[in-house]
């Protein structure tokens, strides 16, 4: 029977990246879950699937994708969904997530997370795609707010209003990237606290924390190659006050440091979340 809801899981985790495979395979890393990039394991065989099976024996796994292209106007690709479903059936993840974006259209794939206009036309297409994806996957999706570097002239609503309505129409959930909120707020001049206040708290299941860079031309870039910045930690503190029963993960994709550095960041996240719980 297809799942219609995603259970809360208030754990603290890290992304599974190749430099840390051996640490994770040792099984003693003090984390509650790992997040894997789905596409890295949507392969026919060999070492990747062996590693994933071994990791899955040791930790709960969340699957996070970058290629669903939920916002493509020409529809979502069924062959991709079927590959993703095969992996999800194999892994039995905590949840399957991707991004509120589009990556390509009509056979072209940019392999980048491209921004959507927040219009009714885009809402209709995104929701149709989500409903199809959830039907094929037989589980609800989590969708992550992207870092964006431009808004569109036709935008009719804020990103958080778009997320809220999308969740209402489809029953999907939110993976809230706090760094992305900070980056987009800086790039577009909105109040990140208003964003947190506008997201439907009951639909948030996971938080991402990551680092960013300044491109020197007035824009922050979601580079995932730095430690989490102080303003993002402050925003995370505010997120802890608003969302409960939510998993938190440190996401690092480039200039990956020793595992101990990421675990130290994760300890800080734990401490901030615990401090809020004590205060509440």
């Amino acid at each position: 029977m297809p799942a219609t809801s995603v259970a809360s899981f208030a754990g603290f985790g890290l992304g599974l990246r190749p430099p840390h495979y051996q640490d994770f395979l040792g099984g003693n890393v003090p984390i509650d879950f790992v997040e894997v990039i789905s596409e890295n394991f949507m392969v026919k065989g060999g070492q990747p699937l062996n590693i994933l099976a071994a990791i899955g024996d040791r930790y709960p796994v969340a699957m996070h994708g970058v290629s669903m292209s939920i916002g493509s106007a020409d529809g979502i690709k069924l062959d991709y969904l079927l590959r993703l479903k095969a992996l999800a059936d194999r892994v039995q993840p905590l949840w399957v997530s991707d991004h509120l974006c589009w990556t390509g259209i009509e056979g072209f794939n940019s392999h980048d997370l491209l921004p959507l206009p927040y219009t009714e036309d885009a809402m209709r297409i995104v929701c149709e795609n989500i409903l199809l994806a959830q039907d094929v996957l037989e589980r609800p999706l989590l969708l992550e707010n992207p870092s964006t570097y431009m808004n569109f002239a036709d935008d009719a609503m804020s990103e958080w209003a778009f997320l809220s309505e999308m969740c209402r129409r489809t029953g999907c959930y939110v993976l809230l990237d706090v760094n992305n909120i900070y980056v987009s707020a800086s790039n577009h001049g909105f109040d990140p606290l208003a964003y947190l206040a506008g997201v439907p708290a009951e639909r948030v299941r996971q938080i991402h924390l990551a680092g960013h860079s300044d491109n020197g031309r007035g824009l922050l870039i979601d580079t995932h190659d730095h430690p989490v910045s102080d303003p993002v930690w402050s925003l995370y503190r505010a997120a802890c006050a608003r969302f409960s029963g939510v998993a938190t993960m440190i996401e690092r994709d480039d200039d990956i440091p020793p595992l101990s550095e990421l675990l130290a960041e994760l300890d800080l996240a734990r401490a901030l979340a615990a401090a809020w719980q004590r205060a509440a």
Partner: protein
Amino acid sequence: MNLLALQRSMREHLIRGAGEIRGQIQGDPSPRLAVYHHAYRSQLVDCLRDTFERVWAWLGDVRFEAAARWHIESRPPHSWTLSDYGDEFDRTLSGLYPDDREVAEIAWLDWSLRRAFDGPDATPIAPDALSGIDWDGAILHIVPTLRMTSISTNCAAIWTSLSEEKTPPLAARLHAPMALRVWRKELSPHFRAVDSIEQQALLMACHGATFAAICSAIAARMEPSKVPEVAGSLLAGWLQDGLIITVENR
């Protein structure tokens, strides 16, 4: 502008730098579009560097990046997965370096080893499983990760030196036609340079020829008295390398 039209405009901007999208963006579009224009190309260059590590080492930073950027401009990505993007980079290099054939051949090797790494699983048969086989009607089934290509240069020696961070030999033409075969044994990709007789025999096996037909083809290229020894040697090598997954008797 509806979503479909907007996405087509953005695609044209990314691929060709077309400007129609500019009117759809709030504020100054130049620095904002530049982020996406740069990210699209830099990610693909990084992908090619990662996949074609030995070609990168052979060509050096400047020539590799120029080739990668040429490839990106002429072949926008289409697959759902970034890991497919290196497909046909060897052809691009062949066009850019027609007189330096080792470049495309090293690229083929880089690419094929990467494909073998996460290719389909298969369990090779043990050598003692071959007893009692009627070799006249035997059909060998080969591991699905096997890939072969003809080569004309010492690309294998260059690749090996580069992978061991040793000074590679100068590029040189081979005196006799050779081929490379790439496959995965257990979890590790391997390659081996083979002569044209083994290349033909292995190609025939992949296409379902009987072992007897393979032996006949070998016999057409040498003294008949040498065929049993050569065929036996090929079979032993394939078993040793884990290339055979089943032997079917017809």
